[in-house]
């Protein structure tokens, strides 16, 4: 087992199997507490206070666990095989995230192409119109025959694609470019450029989240578009909301990576942490393109 403190990624070492670890059990307790807190809040038992210690323990767990891993890595305990395991693990984790979004995209497509037209009496479902929803004219966007909306008249507006969303698209695409530049800089050993472009990336990320927040405010206050605005509001906010959450997480991870580069972590050949975050960032980017096309644009 390598014990030198200099990053020596020699590949003759064994596959590193850590001995014992307290982090998972701490994480499990954290998740359990956190969820009990949310349950308690939702059921109006005693407020969601348990959420706070839960989240705090979870954050502690992340710091501790990742800290340990980073430390081991910096001490050169991981050979190339371990590195490969991390990469594969990250790729499959991202794949699982893609499938999570797929569920919501599926709901969107189902609503647009099947349930809303059916409620409007399309095809064999003509009796829906005759007997149940005579007033309803199917179309997209829709908040359903009950015209669920905060407004008196049941109307709502959608956010035009070529306003803020287009700007946000540009922002995310640019951030995809900046992180690629940062990556090249890292590989070329140009640390200054790496630091600058990495910083630019997460700043763009946070800018995106900020703009998204103003968009939500607009929607809630002026567009009559809320989470409860029928199926359009549901799909709109759940898709963009989960995406925004992922951008936030991604931007935080970028920040962490940036702090690490500032401390001199990563080498031109070995930088799994950097790459993992970059992949994640690209994933967030691609999901956004799907959102831009299917939620905002067409």
């Amino acid at each position, binding site marked *: 087992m390598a014990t030198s403190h200099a990053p020596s990624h020699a590949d003759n070492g*064994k*596959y590193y*199997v*850590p*001995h*014992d*670890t*307290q*982090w*998972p*059990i701490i*994480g*499990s307790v954290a*998740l*359990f507490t956190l*969820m009990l807190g*949310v*349950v308690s809040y*939702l*059921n109006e*038992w005693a407020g969601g206070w348990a959420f706070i210690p839960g989240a705090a323990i979870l954050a502690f767990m992340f710091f501790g*666990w990742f800290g340990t891993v980073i430390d081991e890595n910096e001490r050169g305990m991981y050979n190339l*095989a371990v590195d*490969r*395991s*991390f990469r*594969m*693990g990250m790729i*499959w984790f991202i*794949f*699982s995230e893609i*499938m*999570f*979004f*797929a*569920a*919501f995209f*599926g*709901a969107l497509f*189902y*609503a647009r192409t*099947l*349930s*809303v037209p*059916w*409620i409007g009496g399309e*095809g*064999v479902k003509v009796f829906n119109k005759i007997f149940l929803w005579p007033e309803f004219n199917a179309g997209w966007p829709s*908040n*359903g*025959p*009950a015209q*669920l909306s905060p407004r008196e008249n049941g109307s709502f507006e959608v956010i035009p694609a070529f306003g803020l969303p287009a700007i946000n698209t540009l922002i995310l695409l640019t951030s995809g470019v900046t992180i690629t530049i940062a990556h090249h800089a890292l590989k070329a050993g140009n640390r200054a450029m790496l630091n600058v472009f990495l910083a630019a990336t997460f700043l763009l990320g946070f800018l995106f989240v900020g703009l998204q927040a103003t968009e939500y405010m607009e929607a809630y206050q002026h567009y009559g578009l809320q*989470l*409860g605005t*029928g*199926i359009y509001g*549901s*799909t709109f*906010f759940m898709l963009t909301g989960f995406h925004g959450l992922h951008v936030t997480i991604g931007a935080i991870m970028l920040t962490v990576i940036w702090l690490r580069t500032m401390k001199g972590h990563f080498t031109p050949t070995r930088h799994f942490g950097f790459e993992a975050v970059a992949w994640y960032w690209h994933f967030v980017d691609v999901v956004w393109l799907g959102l831009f096309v299917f939620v905002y644009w067409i």
Partner: protein
Amino acid sequence: MAHEHAAAHDDHHQAPTGLMRWIKTTNHKDIGTLYLIFSAVMFFVGGAMAMVIRAELFKPGMQFVDPSFFNSMTTVHALAMIFGAVMPAWVGLANWMIPLQIGAPDMALPRMNNFSFWILPFAFTLLLIGFFVPGGAPAGGWTLYPPLVLQGGDSLPMAIFAVHLMGASSIMGVINVIVTIMNMRAPGMTLLRMPLFVWTWLITAYLLIAVMPVLAGAVTMLLTDHFFGTSFFSAAGGGDPVMFQHIFWFFGHPEVYILILPAFGIVSEIIPTFSRKPLFGYEAMVYASASIAFLSFIVWAHHMFTVGMPLAGQMFFMLSTMLIAIPTGVKVFNWCATLWRGSLTFETPMLFALAFLFLFTCGGFSGLMLAIVPADFQYHDTYFVVAHFHYVLVPGAVFAIMAGVYYWMPKWTGHMYDEKLGKWHFWLSAIFVNVLFFPQHFLGLAGMPRRIPDYSTQFADWNMVSSLGAFGFGLSQLLFPYIIWKCVKGGAPAPARAWEGAHGLEWEVPSPAPHHTWDEAPSMAVIARGAEH
């Protein structure tokens, strides 16, 4: 037989002892053991609920429980069995055996491995304390269909979060399996040399990672529909309750193959061993498993033939479902061909594997009948369906797990189990499982709906038979933990290659397998000896 490369070297650090050893362990064998113990506990919890169901259904009239509680029993029985008993058993066996079988020192991501286990007890605590909150445990069926499930009491968000946790656990578990298999094979252990248990698990892992997140999405939508005013599943807002069913079954159908594919793998190990003959058609078996997995993504709506889908949809899902019989048939025929011209002995693992072969096939046949849409209009939501899926799940998945446990127990404990008791366990199980589930075909065909706590007197006779079978089957299962306990405590010492006809790297290390194995990857010679399939 014991190979020098497998030499134990247990001593390079002070492991924590007592409870802490189990809580903090990163060893794949320890974690495998934890999974298997958890699975056994949940099997008994879920089984106890099944006993409540069968007791209430013993005769017409309401004798023991309130109808809502009955529905909770049905719901939680299924969740406990599927997510608590069978899936963790598979992950446990994967943990124990995959590194041994591919010559890897451990699972690829050992810390995460610990995490994926320890989430589980918390997830089930969250689910089971639902019995004690206002409104009682979830009672909308394991399929969680809205709008009904949204009428649930305070346990609804608990069940949803429990599903999230189980999903997180599964995803981490299978990432580990995929990465271990793809990255940790000993040099020379090519993909097409891997034992079938490893193959089927790899395919299972791909299925799982594709569908667990979809289930998470579906239950998240339930949560927001209930608490945050979204309208995914409500027509008034433009959604559709049936949309949930589509999303759920996009998960749910692959899920049932997740439950059975590792069983195929185990049976494909055991039958050759006790036939003293290589598995017939190894490559065909691999391709058949992959085809089953692929097809399982495009058949989901066969669970929903009565929801009023357009004709073309019904037709498509009928035909795609029927197709699954073909690769499954290939597997069955290859097992038969493996038995053919073998030299058979009938130790307990082999008996369970043979019963699997018979009874899983019976369950497959009723599955094929269910796929015929017009006929499914008569079968759907009756005990015929209950009979179908218990045949594939109990003498299917559960028997295969038992077969695997008997098969590998000598490797784990270093002792042979009590063969006589094992045979008792087998024969009692095999007979009672049929008394329990075969009559349910008749009940379904005669018109008894599922998920009812009471029934018309015309269904009385077969229900009584079924309940008697259930009690017999349940009591027989008490033998199982006893046999395991006895084997852990002592018994004839097991040689490294515990079975005469066994092949595979796991038999190249001593029994019991030392705490750390394959620290040095096995040599080509060892691999070649192990890989004769």
